[in-house]
Structures are given as C-alpha cells and as structure tokens.
C-alpha cells in the first residue's frame, strides 16, 4: 500500500521520509553545535544558558541512576536523549514526519543500546560477565540461562516497539480526530503528544541507563 505523500521529500526518497528527517535533525544539531561553540562564554546567556540547563538536568539524572559511572556514558545517553526528543517533536511541524514513527529508526536505536550494554558488560567483567546470566545459585543455572537470554533479547524489542508504538499511535490519534472534527478537537491531543514525546524520551534514556548500570554491576 502506497501512502499519499503529504510531507516534504527529496527526490528518490519519497517513501523513506524517516531517513530524510533523520538527516534534517542531524544537520540541525551540527549547526546548533557550531553556533554554540563559536560564542562560548563564562557567563552563559541565551541559547547557551538553555543548553547548559538541559545538559545539567540530564547529567543529574544520569548521576542519580548510574552513580559515579554516569559521567562515563553521559555522551551517548545525552545524544540519544536529544535525538529522540527532536525526532518525536519534529512530527508536529506540518510537512514533517517523525523518524521515530518508523520501526526501522527505533529498532536501530534499540540495537545501538543493546550492543552498547552487552559490550560494556563484556569489557568490564571479561568472561565473568556470564555470571550475570547464571542466576544466584549454581544448581539453578541450567534454568536461568535460557530465561536470562530471552529477557535480554526482549529488551531491544520492547524498547523499539514502545517508542514506535507511542509516536505512531499519537500520530494516528491526531489524524483520526482531524478527520472527524478538523477544527479544534485535535489541539488537546497535540498538547498531549508533546507531553508523551518528552515522557517517552525520558523512558528510553532511563532504561538505557538502567541496562548499562545493570551490565556494570557485579553478579550476585
């Protein structure tokens, strides 16, 4: 089924709007970074002030969830947070599409998180990382190993499905309400969508932090 094209597209990518808008967000972040780097001041004002506040809040959250490991993995966490928040919110601009309303984007993000925390676990504990999969006592290991493997494999699935389902569901609700009553009724839902975008970003980022700190801690 071909969807009607009602968004801005570049030739050759008509049916891959999520790629286009991922690039849009990336370019926007590059310009933002260059703009911030140019006029960096000791006494922040304007844009720098806002960004410092956001970064500070994120760093506090990372510290409270991950303890002293928070600062090590802060860059990837903050990158995920900024990208997902902008990707969720860009869908509210007419003519734009949320990259996260496509399962490919969210699955890519979830796989990044999955590979990252498994790699962190192996890097930190070496071969002893397998102890986390074997449960508390040795004679239960035969049963715990498949359960733990399945639960670890379910993590990227649940991360990607949750983000995709939320963003796509919000879009569809706005669409359906817009079909029914085009004038005023979709507006509260749009406000709710802004709220849900922020909440889903927070959930994704907090779960990332929880997974990484789970991979870091010693098996018990």
């Amino acid at each position, binding site marked *: 089924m071909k969807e009607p094209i009602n968004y801005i597209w570049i030739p050759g990518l008509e049916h891959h709007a999520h790629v286009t808008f991922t690039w849009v967000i990336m370019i926007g972040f590059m310009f933002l970074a260059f703009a911030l780097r140019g006029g960096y001041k000791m006494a922040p004002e304007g844009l720098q002030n806002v960004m410092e506040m956001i970064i500070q809040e994120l760093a506090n959250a990372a510290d*409270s969830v991950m303890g002293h490991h928070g600062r090590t993995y802060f860059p990837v966490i903050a990158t995920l947070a900024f990208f997902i928040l902008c990707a969720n919110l860009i869908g509210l601009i007419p003519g734009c599409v949320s990259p996260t309303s496509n399962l490919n984007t969210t699955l890519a993000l979830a796989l990044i998180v999955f590979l990252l925390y498994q790699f962190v676990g192996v890097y930190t504990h070496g071969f002893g990382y397998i102890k986390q999969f074997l449960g508390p006592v040795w004679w239960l290991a035969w049963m715990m190993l498949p359960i733990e493997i399945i639960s670890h494999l379910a993590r990227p699935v*649940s991360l990607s*499905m*949750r983000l*995709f*389902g939320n963003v796509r*569901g919000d879009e569809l609700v706005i669409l359906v309400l817009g079909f029914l009553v085009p004038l005023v009724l979709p507006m509260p839902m749009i406000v709710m969508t802004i709220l849900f975008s922020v909440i889903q970003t*927070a959930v994704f980022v907090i*779960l990332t932090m*929880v997974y990484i700190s789970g991979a870091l801690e010693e098996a018990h």
Partner: protein
Amino acid sequence: MKGKKRVAALLILWAILLAAPMAMASEGAAAGAESRYDGFFSYVALACVVGLGLAAGGGGIGMGSAVAGVVNAMARNPGLYGKFFMILFIGLAFIESVVIYTLVVVLLLLYANPLL
C-alpha cells in the same frame, strides 16, 4: 441475581458483536461480491477494537494500582520522592509497553495484514 443478569447481558452483547460481521458478510454475498475475504475485514476490525480495548483496560488497572502504591509510599516518606518517582516511571513504562505491543499488532493487522 444481579451478577447473573450482568453476565447474561455481556453474553448477549458478545453474541451480537460476533454476529454483526456475519450479517455484513451475508449482505456482501447477497450483493454478488464473490470473494475469499467475505467478512474478513469486519472480523479484523472487531478483533482490533476488542483486543486493544482489553489490553488498555488491563494496562489501566495495572497502572492505577501502581500509581496508588507509589502515592501511598510518597505520602509516608516524602524524602524519597526522587527514588519513588524513578521506580514509578520505569514500572509504568513496562506496563505501558505491554499495551503498546497490542497496539503494534493492531497496526500490523490494519496496515500490513500477514493473513491476507
């Protein structure tokens, strides 16, 4: 007695819901539309709405009880607000994700039906 009446009403409602697609299917057949998929889409729509409704109901009950517990805990010990909030957040995300799975299945059935 009241409970029995309620059960009976629910059963009748269920029967009507189940019968509706068949009635529509027979209408379609009467109109001369020869197709393998007579009534198929009605059943798909029914399954989507009922399934998502059940999932949302279950998720709502779970979330309500979770929030009630956390509000109790916060009232007893306001000092640990941040910690409770984080636990509530993660728990709600997990509960919600189960409902979202149903939503994804519903979207699959509606937009990219594998049975078709």
